[in-house]
Every structure is written in structure tokens, then in C-alpha cells.
């Protein structure tokens, strides 16, 4: 295998340590992921002042939450409402809010999504089985520099009194990219 040869050569030359590579992979698989973003959204749904801070300065708000201790550059949260639907893409390659969502899924990095999200967002949403009302405006955020975006999905109805942990179970990864909605209370146990 070509990558194995690459790793062997770089190891023999003293550039990399295979144990460090194992640790990097383990961290990607266990430490980061959409569960972090789901906690951010759950807090925003249950705490109006946190939501204001999040929409005002997501970098600050997310760091204050204390789940992660570092954000590369800027993070911006954009709010979905009945009148406005936000969607995130990186047409240039794969820029994605790792800190809160982990590594991007394959479809996010694929040519179909990268080329069509900016041009035919309703068609892309249809590929996800998502239909928006005709009068909902669409804003697509193309991550072309070092800022990353996260969508604050619409808060489901009938969730009064839910704990943040339970609220987080309604938040899907796709709802934070804008290619899906949050689950409804009836969809989780």
C-alpha cells in the first residue's frame, strides 16, 4: 500500500512517530464530533442570553461553554428561522467547523455538493429529503477563508422542561450544516 510506504519512509527518516499517528487518529475518532456542536445548540435553545452571545460572537460563546479549549480563527453561528434557511459549503475544498462538528462527512467534500450547494440549494436539499417552504429565503455560506460557520437549527416545538442533554439528542450533524432539520421530540426516545 502506498500510504504504508509513505509512513515507513517518514518514520525511518525520523520525521514521524507511529505512536503519535495512532494517537492523532484516536483523538479524531473519540474527542471531536457533532456531539460538541449539539451541546452548543442545546444551550442556545434553552438559554436566550447564551443564544445572543452565540449569534454575536460564536468563538467567544463556544469557548465560554468550556467543552473545547481552542478555536482556530473565527467561528460564526447563523440562525435558521421560518423565513431564512442557512446552509454551509466549502466550494474550494473542505473547510468545515472541526472544533464543533469533527471531520466533515464524505458527501460534504464531494464534487456534487461543492458544485451544487451554491447554485441549486433546493435541489441539494431534495437529495437529503428536505423540502423548504417556497417563501423561505436561502443563504449559502461558502467558507472561502479562515472563518467557519455553524448553523443554529430551528428549535423544535413542545420541548419545554427538557434538559440540555435531552435537547442535544435532537440536534443532528446535518441540521448544523443546514442540510437537515433538528429531530422532533417524537423521534427520540
Amino acid at each position: 500500500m502506498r500510504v504504508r510506504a509513505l509512513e515507513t519512509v517518514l518514520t525511518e527518516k525520523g520525521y514521524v512517530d507511529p505512536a503519535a499517528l495512532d494517537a492523532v487518529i484516536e483523538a479524531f475518532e473519540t474527542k471531536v464530533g457533532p456531539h460538541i456542536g449539539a451541546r452548543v445548540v442545546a444551550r442556545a435553545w434553552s438559554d436566550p442570553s447564551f443564544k445572543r452571545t452565540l449569534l454575536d460572537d460564536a468563538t467567544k460563546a463556544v469557548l465560554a461553554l468550556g467543552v473545547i479549549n481552542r478555536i482556530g480563527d473565527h467561528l460564526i453561528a447563523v440562525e435558521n428561522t421560518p423565513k431564512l434557511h442557512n446552509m454551509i459549503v466549502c466550494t474550494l475544498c473542505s473547510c468545515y467547523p472541526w472544533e464543533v462538528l469533527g471531520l466533515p462527512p464524505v458527501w460534504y467534500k464531494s464534487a456534487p455538493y461543492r458544485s451544487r450547494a451554491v447554485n441549486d440549494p433546493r435541489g441539494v436539499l431534495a437529495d437529503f429529503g428536505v423540502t423548504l417552504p417556497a417563501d423561505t429565503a436561502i443563504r449559502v455560506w461558502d467558507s472561502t477563508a479562515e472563518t467557519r460557520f455553524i448553523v443554529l437549527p430551528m428549535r423544535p416545538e413542545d420541548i419545554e422542561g427538557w434538559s440540555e442533554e435531552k435537547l442535544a439528542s435532537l440536534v443532528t450533524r446535518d441540521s448544523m450544516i443546514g442540510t437537515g432539520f433538528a429531530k422532533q421530540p417524537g423521534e427520540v426516545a
Partner: protein
Amino acid sequence: MHGFGKVEPEQDEPVFHEDWEARTQALYRAMSYAGVWCIDAARFAREQLPPAVYLSSSYYKKWELGMEKQLAELGLAGPDELAAGHALRPGKPLKRKLSAPGAPNVITRGSFARPAQKPAKFKPGDRVRTKNIHPKTHTRLPRYARDKVGLVEALRGWFDGRELWGESAEPSLKVSIEAFEPYLEPA
């Protein structure tokens, strides 16, 4: 560029599909930590792949090919060594080496922000036209947004869907990009 077909979401997608993809990601992080390349140089290396190779290679294949190209150009590892599967020459000294305990720190994004060198030329509400540039080097200005009029919103701006795609565009569509100032002129 269009005609790539439908987006295909995958249920319960794993973080990595194949072991070699995970090793590629980790090798990239470890060599970045060693100070070998920065994010834009790595992007440029991938974008320089021949178009047919770029379009037909999977995401991590492009990363791997980009790394091989950079390692050869920097004199850190040659194609002959990769073909042999072993180092044929001693390594060069690098800035630092990633250790296992330090690994969790390299999975967060680095900061690439640079302080502004002079006051911003444009302010929110300004109408701007993106330049019609086609550099041979890396650019962060997407092709679809070249020579288009948009509105500065904050650090970024947006275009009306019809400005980008003409009359067939979704009527309510707005597309936001972040364009570095040299990409812009007043409109």
C-alpha cells in the same frame, strides 16, 4: 463545474472509512506539526494535481498525492524511496516532532489570522466588484464569484443568486463569501 450528479448522504458514516485514510490524515497533521508545510501550500499542492487526477481521486487520495509532491519538492523524501518502501537517505532535521501525548492538540485547527496592515478599504454596505483574476497559484476566490457585484456585510459579503447564476437562479438565494481585499474593487 457541474454534472457530478446527486449528493449521496451516508447513514452512520464512520470518521474514517479505511485505515489508510486515517493514516493519511495523521501523517498530514504530524508533518504540519513538524513545520514542513502550511495550510495554503498544502492546498496549492493538491490543486496542482492534473485536472483528470484531481477529479477522479478520492479526498484522501488527493491529500496523499499532495503530500508526496511536497515531500519531493522540499527534498524530504523522494519518489525512489516511496517506490522502495524504505528510506534510502537519512532524514533532514525538522523543527520538531509530534509525540503521542501531544497528538490531541494537533486535531484542532491552527490559527492563520494575520493582523491587518492598514485600515479596511471597504465598509459594510459598500458595493464591490470582485476582480476577474485567474492566477496560476492558489486563490481563495471561487471561480463562480469572479467579476461579480456584491455587497459588503461585515468581514464578508454576499451576492444575489441572479448576479452569479442569471435568471434561472433560486429567487431568494444569497451566497456569502469571504474575499480578501485585493480581490475587490469598488462597484
